[in-house]
């Protein structure tokens, strides 16, 4: 099994006629058994199609055309229009929204997240590459073209959560090379405020019988790792976790942001050093190098089984 999406998930692409969105649509259609992209939305482009996917002016038209509720949406519209697009998706009953767009002011993101949670919807991202269930479905640009995604991702028992889109693929590829597949890999985005944090996805992985262990990629900035450590401590999780922390050099450079908008070190608690200590306290192993991850997570899984 998997979390968030499966072989039956239907979704639309908002902003589908944009250059990147056209590629993304192709990639998703080609991957696995073929994603069920039931429509696309670009205002003013009603009646067109993108790789056979019908284009609508509004989400409501897409839902009406589909004749049933639509599960998800990949939002890839410019930052100034993202809030409107996400509000539209939520108000039309969509429950899973992957926001690809970068550079959205955090107040807009916070408003989207608050409206989503009031409506029982979930946001992944922004500034993320989306979700992949190996060989089944990919929702977003994660892993790139289908043939490249197939090289990096393979079906298996490890859940992957990452603040970096590229590193989601790098870590999954390392696991795949070691013979360890992934149940679901989620690129959660690198911004200061995101729809779903590690801790907020853990309960889904916890409930997914196919998942036996979790691998996460983390960075300085914010309190998401502290939140994860607390979640693990409070929930007596069955899942062993291995983390990789990038950007250790940033501890020497407070006030500067590298990599992603959310990485700025503002206090003592959000440094790499402090986060590593927090994670370790919660029993989460922090790998020094990516290449160590497969052996570390395997050992932890074996330990729990014995």
């Amino acid at each position, binding site marked *: 099994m998997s979390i968030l999406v499966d072989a039956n998930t239907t979704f639309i692409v908002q902003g589908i006629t944009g250059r990147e969105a056209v590629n993304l649509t192709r990639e998703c259609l080609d991957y696995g058994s073929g994603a069920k992209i039931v429509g696309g939305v670009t205002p003013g482009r009603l009646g067109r199609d993108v790789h056979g996917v019908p284009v609508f002016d509004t989400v409501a038209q897409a839902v009406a055309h589909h004749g049933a509720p639509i599960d998800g949406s990949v939002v890839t519209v410019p930052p100034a229009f993202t809030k409107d697009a996400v509000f539209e998706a939520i108000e039309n009953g969509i429950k899973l929204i992957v926001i690809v767009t970068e550079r959205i002011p955090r107040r807009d993101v916070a408003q989207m997240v608050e409206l989503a949670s009031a409506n029982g919807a979930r946001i992944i991202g922004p500034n993320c590459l989306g979700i992949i269930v190996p060989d089944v479905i990919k929702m977003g640009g994660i892993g790139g073209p289908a043939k490249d995604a197939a090289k990096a991702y393979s079906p298996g028992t490890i859940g992957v959560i990452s603040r970096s889109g*590229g590193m989601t693929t790098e870590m999954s590829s390392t696991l795949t090379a070691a013979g360890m597949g992934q149940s679901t890999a989620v690129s959660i985005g690198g911004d200061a405020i995101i729809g779903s944090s590690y801790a907020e996805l853990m309960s889904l992985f916890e409930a997914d019988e196919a998942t036996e262990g979790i691998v996460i990629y983390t960075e300085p900035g914010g309190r998401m790792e502290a939140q994860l450590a607390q979640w693990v401590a409070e929930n007596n999780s069955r899942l062993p976790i291995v983390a990789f922390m990038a950007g250790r050099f940033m501890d020497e450079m407070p006030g500067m942001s590298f990599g992603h908008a959310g990485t700025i070190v503002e206090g003592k608690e959000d440094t790499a050093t402090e986060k590593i200590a927090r994670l370790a306290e919660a029993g989460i192993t922090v790998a020094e190098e990516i290449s160590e991850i497969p052996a570390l997570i395997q050992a932890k899984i074996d330990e729990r089984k014995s």
Partner: protein
Amino acid sequence: MRFYEYEAREIVRRAGIPVTEFGFATTPEEAKAAAEKIDGPSVVKSQVLSGGRMKAGGVQFADTPDEAAAHTVDVLKIEIGGQMPRGVLVDTKAEVEQEYYAGVVWDGTAKQPVIIFSPVGGIDIEQVAEEQPDKVGRRHISNLRPLTGFEAKEVIASTGVTGSELNKLVPIVTKLAQLFIDNDMTLAEINPIGRLADGSFIALDAHMDMENEARGRHKKLLAELGVGDDETREAREPTAFELAGEAVDAEDHRGVAGNVTEFDGNLGLVIGAGGGSLTLFDAVRAHGGKPANYCEIGGNPSVSKTCGLAKLVLQKPGVDKIAVMMSIVSNTRVDIVARGVIKACLELGMDPAEKIAIFRIPGAWEEQGFLILDAYGVEYADRSVSMHEAAKRAVDKIGAGS
């Protein structure tokens, strides 16, 4: 983006919060005029973006306008936190009976702004939170529902403040929270708010940070404050090398060559993307390497952009070799990056095989990329070589070469 105090004060004033009479000055003459307007004892405060002004001698008290002018001459000469002051703020020296703290910041875990208030102001709020936690009130505010005032009332009342004090502070703290929202701030802080002998309250110092991503929707305010579009307001001023990096990125809209940052090592880095660069920079240092720079390429940069960045790094004084490395790419094309870095070497009359210590970019179009690298004898690696191993190989080569 951080505002100078004189700008933050102006933002506070525009929000309808009472502030002391103040003026911004870049010359002793202007400072004297500002002090004359104040008509009483004044404070001359250095306008820099970093803290520690008092300790560095950047804050001076003056009884007369002439004294304010004299202090301005001195203060303008003092470098604080690596920055020369932009000017001085000439402020009223207010007689306050008590100092309070009010601030609004984002809570990334709750995904809402949080109002923080304390009747113990004038010092670092984190210190107050540690030493007198019951004197610090916090409350989240909705992102969707407009502020009405009870939110601030609850925070202030939770710290034990009541009576007319409470009623006079509520509008100030509500206006502060509103300006935080209206201006896309990531920090809006008044510390201290002073209570004067007549029982009125006044903002004495303010700190404001606006989110960079939102600058575009506050053009009018920024223009009125005189903040230029090109002012980054980072923790330190960009170096000439970093400005050249920005120029490379701006020349061509295809792809990104971002966050070019100067370090003083001998190994030039052409690395990407966001998370990959963070990982690779750490990896180089973990193996004892000394990076000459940091950068993030991605989003499928053109040959010319990659070439421009590689040239900049190759020509940086002290750089022996460059390492071209990324995490597995799916959007960026390996062959285009390969072309770009080889072109850079050739145009500078350098041998790519000698100058490129390692090329480790697996992913889209890698077969084509590796063919090009083969043709020039450049050492490359696919995904079977980890990012850390690639970094080690680059560091080893530099060691052997010098």
